[in-house]
């Protein structure tokens, strides 16, 4: 056998031998685990990196973050949770921030609410948004940033009066497509507001919650079931009150010019320079609804509304009610 061929064979054998130990450059695996049916986050799901023998749990938002250093390319992440079918994700198939949709098993006990008179109650999510769809719209429509106002309120219409508000879901924008610093933290006030029947604008505050998000979960579930809030009218608002504090800061960059002097003709000479823009979390994911959506902004001491036509991006904000 010629030496060159022998070397080639040895090289091939060597590559085949080391292939399983080739590791991925990815430094972290992060994403969220959601119920395939309801698309709500699933907490306490066990994640196991099989070859690395590493375990972790999702948090209350179904959010997980796994260190991926030295992970073998042929490793697999196993997701297990009581009441759900096991889900396997080969790490080679990992794409940034996946939503792992776990299928409920048939034996899972669905939540059933029975009143004293054995009357069945309905649980409905208004303006439901499907997190897996939102990025599609964001990229095609470039996204409408509904935000940066101190107060932003979204109008919801209820099927009946005297409904109970169970939870609010909001979609945080994945800012990874932008030149923007990462800040997983966000503190803001969530207000549930009655409608001002005369003006149609947000009126009396029914409930205020200070929300402090401390992870990078894109789909956020805010549980209000223990607040026992019964909505008195057939319309209500969910308002986000932003806090312009350092804790919420993110920074983006926009190229700009600075004056460098003048030329012989007296014309100004300009140099390129960055303009760093300070903006504040939370950014809500743009999301279209099949119907028109009324968003209200608090400007100069009064509420002003803007109606977004059907299929135009507004913000990913939904409410789950019981009636």
């Amino acid at each position, binding site marked *: 056998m010629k030496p060159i061929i022998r070397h080639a064979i040895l090289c091939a054998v060597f590559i085949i031998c080391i292939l399983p130990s080739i590791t991925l450059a990815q430094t972290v695996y992060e994403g969220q685990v959601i119920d395939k049916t309801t698309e709500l986050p699933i907490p306490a799901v066990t994640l196991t990196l099989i070859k690395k023998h590493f375990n972790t749990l999702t948090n209350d938002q179904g959010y997980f973050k796994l260190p991926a250093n030295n992970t073998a390319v042929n490793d697999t992440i196993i997701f297990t949770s009581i009441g759900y079918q096991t889900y396997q994700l080969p790490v080679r198939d990992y794409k940034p921030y996946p939503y792992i949709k776990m299928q409920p098993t048939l034996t899972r006990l669905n939540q059933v609410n029975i009143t004293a008179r054995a009357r069945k109650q309905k649980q409905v999510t208004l303006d439901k948004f499907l997190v897996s769809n939102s990025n599609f719209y964001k990229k095609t429509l470039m996204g409408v940033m509904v935000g*940066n106002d101190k107060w932003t309120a979204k109008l919801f219409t209820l099927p009946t009066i005297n409904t109970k508000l169970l939870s609010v879901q909001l979609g945080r924008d994945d800012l990874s497509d932008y030149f923007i610093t990462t*800040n997983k*933290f966000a503190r803001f006030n969530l207000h549930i507001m009655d409608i001002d029947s005369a003006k149609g604008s947000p009126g009396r505050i029914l409930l205020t919650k200070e929300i402090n998000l401390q992870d990078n979960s894109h789909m956020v579930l805010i549980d209000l079931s223990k607040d026992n809030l019964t909505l008195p009218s057939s319309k209500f608002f969910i308002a986000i009150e932003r806090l312009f504090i350092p804790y919420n800061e993110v920074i983006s960059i926009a*190229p700009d010019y*600075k004056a460098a002097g003048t030329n012989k003709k007296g014309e100004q000479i300009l140099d390129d*320079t960055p303009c*760093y823009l*300070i*903006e*504040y979390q939370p950014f809500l994911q743009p999301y279209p609804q099949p119907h028109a959506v009324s968003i209200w902004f608090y400007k100069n001491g009064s509420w002003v509304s803007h109606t977004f036509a059907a299929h135009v991006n507004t913000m990913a904000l939904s409410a789950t009610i019981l009636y």
Partner: protein
Amino acid sequence: MKSLLTLVCCLIALITNAQTEKLNKFHLVDKVTNKPVITSVAIVKAKLSITTEKDGVFIIPGDLKKMTDSIIFSAQNYFDIKMPLKALSTLDTIRLTRLAFKTTNTESKFTRDTLLNNFNGEDVGYFAGLHEDTASFNYLQLAQQFYIDKINTKLNTLQIERLSFNLDDKYGWGIYNNPRLEHYRQIEFTAFKLRIYDINDATGKPGKDLCDSIIVIKLRSSERARINLKDYNINIPHKTFFVAIEWMRDYYNAHYTGIVIPNLKSRFISYKPAIGISPITGKKLNIWALNTNHDWLPYATFSPFGTDLAIKATVGYN
């Protein structure tokens, strides 16, 4: 030329009682050698400061006799000079007196070292140096206080995180397809001075310089500065010391900062680099800021969650 224009523009904006177009030009020089000195010039109440270029020249427009503010000239290894602005009306040259630097440098060989203020650089998300609330950032220096459990150690290396989107080798939508992309690849270049201070025993604040060399760090687009200080032989005499970023507030580093808040159109000049805040919250605040009056104050903007600057240090000891 650029520096003169910058100085003129900045000072015009803030010296409100300047009624005339008269330009008052000054030279900052070493008292003995008469050579120009790169100097930090701060106007106290106006909270304005700039750094001269190598020629040591600065210009103030207007009638100096009518100005009521004070001015401070400060340069490493020289005594600070503070005087009323009106006192400049009879001067065209300011002579700086050199400090007698008492060397504490050491050439001892240290066999071990320890890493102070460790954190994961990927987790740095907050940056100081762009703004304060809705106003510009007017501090001259920010210092990180370090603690070690030994005396007479040696500062070996530093790692500093700063704000950079690294446009040198990254681009995305917004800049992608922009014909000026090539020009943007240099807009995050920066230079800053590094100061190492002993503790002032009386105040607990940064005190004397521990290194008489002027250390200028130049960065291209990198968000991380790795600095080897071994050749400077910087001896740390006490169990605490300070590492400070001194901004070179000149044309080269000047950029804009805008704050996106409703009903507020706020855009002002800031200076690169913005320095990272450590993602690890400590038990006490360890960041100090030097204001235009040359007072060191605790820097609590990011407190309680941001207690330290994103600066790591390795210190050698025996």
